[in-house]
Structure formats: structure tokens, C-alpha cells
């Protein structure tokens, strides 16, 4: 019962969905202000979701029906699990279990995988191209991302529980304060941008060439699920980085404001990167991640071993 409550309501689905929609409003509003526009009203993301829930869901005749309908659900469940785990551990670091960091890393890949499944199962050639690009992107950013996450583990002397990492940071200062931690944070932010499939790494969706990519055939409720997953990721990934690198979010009253500021700060960085960069080609993105970014991540790992 308690687990269900955690999963569905408080740190889980409802809370993350509300926070995610709020972040996606911040995203759209800041984007609009950067472009000297007024931007959408506050409730716009919620209205979009409600509208999509009320629309007809079309099943393309070429699609594999079960996979087509199931993949958005998988993505939504994956990101909800991540968020639940992260918040429970943030509230109570002792609730952590061995290897939860690895579990979270795996679960974070699930939304991308659900997009790939949905794209391939919809039987649309453009969706297939988008899905194949998403797959290449996943393969390219996963290596530096994991290397960057390795840095806090090494620096704390092999702690692999998220709760322990939080406790370590509470006593010894945040990881982002050291040279290796700062470099790892930069790498992780760039990988996060790719995980969210935002410009400059939005080639799977590329509105101007692939007109929506993997989700091109989705409509109505299933599209709403994808939009919601996207919004929830926009909130959950900054939370993950804040917990791993910048010391987590304290849930007491005045300290919580500082925690929220950390999340919003990361969010604004994401939005500014997205608004000031052109889209890369997929081969350029793979080169970028496997070349310079992995190099930086390796440098951070080496520095962490040296104790810097």
C-alpha cells in the first residue's frame, strides 16, 4: 500500500508529472523570452496534455499494434520509477540499497528505448530513421555519461549507494567543488542534453527534416504519454545530477529553496544551451561524444583517482 502511494502519488507519478509540466512551462517561457516573444500561459503544458487525452487515437494499419501501444507506457513507468527512487533516497539516505546507482542508470535509458521501440513499431519510414538516430545517439552518450557518474563513486572511495553518496557530500563538501567533479558535471550536463533529445542533439526528432521522428504516427492518448515522459525527464534528470554532484535537495523549509534553485539553475543551463546552438548531424554527434567528451570524462576519472 505504502509502496503504491510512493509510486503513484508523492514522489512518484503525480508529483513528478506536476513538476515536469512546470519545468516544461519554464522551458517554453524562457525560450520565448530569449526569442523576444511573450510565450505560452502558465497552464499551457497541462492543457496540451488534457487536450491530447481527449483526442482520437489512431492505429496506423502498418503498425505492430501491441508494441505501438505499449512502448509509451514502458517509458512512462521507467521515468516514474527513477523519480520515485531518487526522491525517496533524497528524503531518507538510509533507505538506499546496494547498487541503486546502477539501477537508476539503467532505468534512465528506458525512456529512450521506449522511443526507439515506438518508432520502429509504427511502420513509418520516417519514424524508423528517427528511431535509428535515437539508437545511435543512445550508444554514443551512454559511455561518457557512465564515466562521469563514476567520478563521484571513485572520489568517495567506492560508495555505490546513492544514499551514501549524499551522506558523503554532506560531510566532505559537494563533488562539483573539486576539479574532477566539476569536469564530470560538465560532461554529464552535455550528456543530459542528449538524453533529453534537445538541440543541439535533437536529430532523432528534427522537426524540420523528420517532422517529429519516432513519434510521428502517435496521436491522442499515446502521444500525451510521450509528451508527459519528456516533461518528466526534463525534471528528473536535473534532480539526478543535483543528487549525484551538487549535494542533493534538503527537504526542510529554508534549505529546500536552495535545493530548488539548484534544479532550476540546471534547467536554465539546459534551456540556454538549447536556444543558442544549431542542430548537429548524427555523425557529428557520435564523433563529438566518442572523441572530446569521452576524453574529458576519462580525464575526470584519472583526476579522481589522483584525488583532485
Amino acid at each position: 500500500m505504502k509502496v503504491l502511494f510512493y509510486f503513484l502519488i508523492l514522489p512518484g507519478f503525480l508529483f513528478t508529472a506536476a513538476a515536469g509540466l512546470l519545468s516544461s512551462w519554464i522551458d517554453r517561457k524562457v525560450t520565448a523570452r530569449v526569442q523576444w516573444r511573450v510565450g505560452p500561459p502558465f497552464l499551457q503544458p497541462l492543457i496540451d496534455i488534457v487536450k491530447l487525452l481527449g483526442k482520437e487515437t489512431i492505429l496506423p494499419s502498418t503498425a505492430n499494434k501491441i508494441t505501438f501501444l505499449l512502448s509509451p507506457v514502458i517509458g512512462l513507468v521507467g521515468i516514474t520509477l527513477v523519480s520515485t527512487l531518487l526522491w525517496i533516497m533524497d528524503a531518507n539516505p538510509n533507505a538506499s540499497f546496494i547498487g541503486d546507482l546502477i539501477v537508476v542508470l539503467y532505468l534512465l535509458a528506458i525512456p529512450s528505448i521506449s522511443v526507439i521501440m515506438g518508432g520502429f513499431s509504427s511502420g513509418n519510414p520516417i519514424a524508423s530513421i528517427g528511431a535509428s538516430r535515437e539508437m545511435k545517439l543512445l550508444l554514443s552518450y551512454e559511455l561518457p555519461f557512465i564515466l562521469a557518474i563514476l567520478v563521484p563513486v571513485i572520489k568517495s572511495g567506492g560508495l555505490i549507494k546513492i544514499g551514501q553518496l549524499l551522506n558523503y557530500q554532506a560531510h566532505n563538501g559537494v563533488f562539483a567543488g573539486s576539479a574532477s567533479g566539476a569536469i564530470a558535471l560538465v560532461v554529464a550536463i552535455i550528456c543530459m542534453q542528449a538524453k533529453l533529445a534537445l538541440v543541439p542533439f535533437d536529430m532523432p526528432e528534427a522537426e524540420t527534416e523528420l517532422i517529429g521522428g519516432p513519434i510521428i504516427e502517435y496521436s491522442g492518448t499515446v502521444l500525451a504519454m510521450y509528451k508527459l515522459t519528456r516533461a518528466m525527464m526534463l525534471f528528473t534528470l536535473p534532480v539526478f545530477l543535483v543528487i549525484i554532484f551538487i549535494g542533493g535537495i534538503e527537504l526542510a523549509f529554508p534549505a529546500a529553496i536552495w535545493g530548488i534553485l539548484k534544479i532550476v539553475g540546471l534547467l536554465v543551463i539546459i534551456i540556454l544551451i538549447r536556444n543558442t546552438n544549431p542542430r548537429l548531424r548524427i555523425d557529428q554527434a557520435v564523433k563529438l561524444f566518442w572523441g572530446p567528451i569521452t576524453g574529458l570524462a576519462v580525464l575526470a576519472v584519472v583526476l579522481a583517482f589522483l584525488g583532485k
Partner: protein
Amino acid sequence: MSIKLKALLKSPWVFHLCSGSCNNCDIEILDCITPRYDIERFGMLLVGSVRHADVLLCTGIVNKLGESRVKRIYNQTPKPCLVVAVGNCANSQGVFRGSYACGKPLDQVIPVDIYIPGCPPKPEAIILGVVKLIEKIKGKKK
């Protein structure tokens, strides 16, 4: 009014369907999303896939080859959806009337909800047209 319709009117995602226009109307439609007019204020977004669309902005005479495609695109749109005919061409075939390429006018191919005249209509006129469409639907359902 049902919550479904209310949400639809507050976040109409627009798909841009061009069939045999001279491309001038299309440029005026794109003007609507520039900072000067910024239709995202009303929750409107230009979407690339017709499956995501709520409003079809149709421009151009529907020529003989395009006719079946326009019909197919209308059928591919998830309902409820609205159709707006932008420009004289889409309203009444405009200057192309009587040309060998002209088939039936748009409103005989798919049901049209509102007509926006002009060759091309100004962005203000397009926004006004959509506002009138929203008012019309609100009035109908009251």
C-alpha cells in the same frame, strides 16, 4: 462546454496543408509564429505531423492531383479537428479559377469551418479568423 473541447480551443496545434498555392499564403502563415505576432501566446504550435494536429490550415487551389491527397490527409487527422481555408485560392480558387489544373474547390473536398479571405491575408487577418472560429465553436456549444 466539455473540458475536452475547452482544452482543444486553448491549445490548437496547427498543421499547415499546402496544395497548389503560390506559396505566399504559406509565408504569411509562418509570419504568425514570428516574435511580432507570437501565436504561442494562445497555445498554438505549428506541428510537423498531421497526427498531432487539431487545426488544418489549408492554402491553395486544390488541384486535380492534390484532391485525393487532401482528402487522405483530412482522414489521417485525429478527430475532433477543425479546417481553416486561408487565402482566396482556398476559398474560391481565386486567380486560378478556370485553369486546366483546377479541380473542385476546397470546401467540396473536405468540410471547411471558416474562410479567411485575402490574397494573401495579413497575419492579423489569419489570427482574427482563428479567434472567430474559436468564438463560433464556443457559441455553438453553449
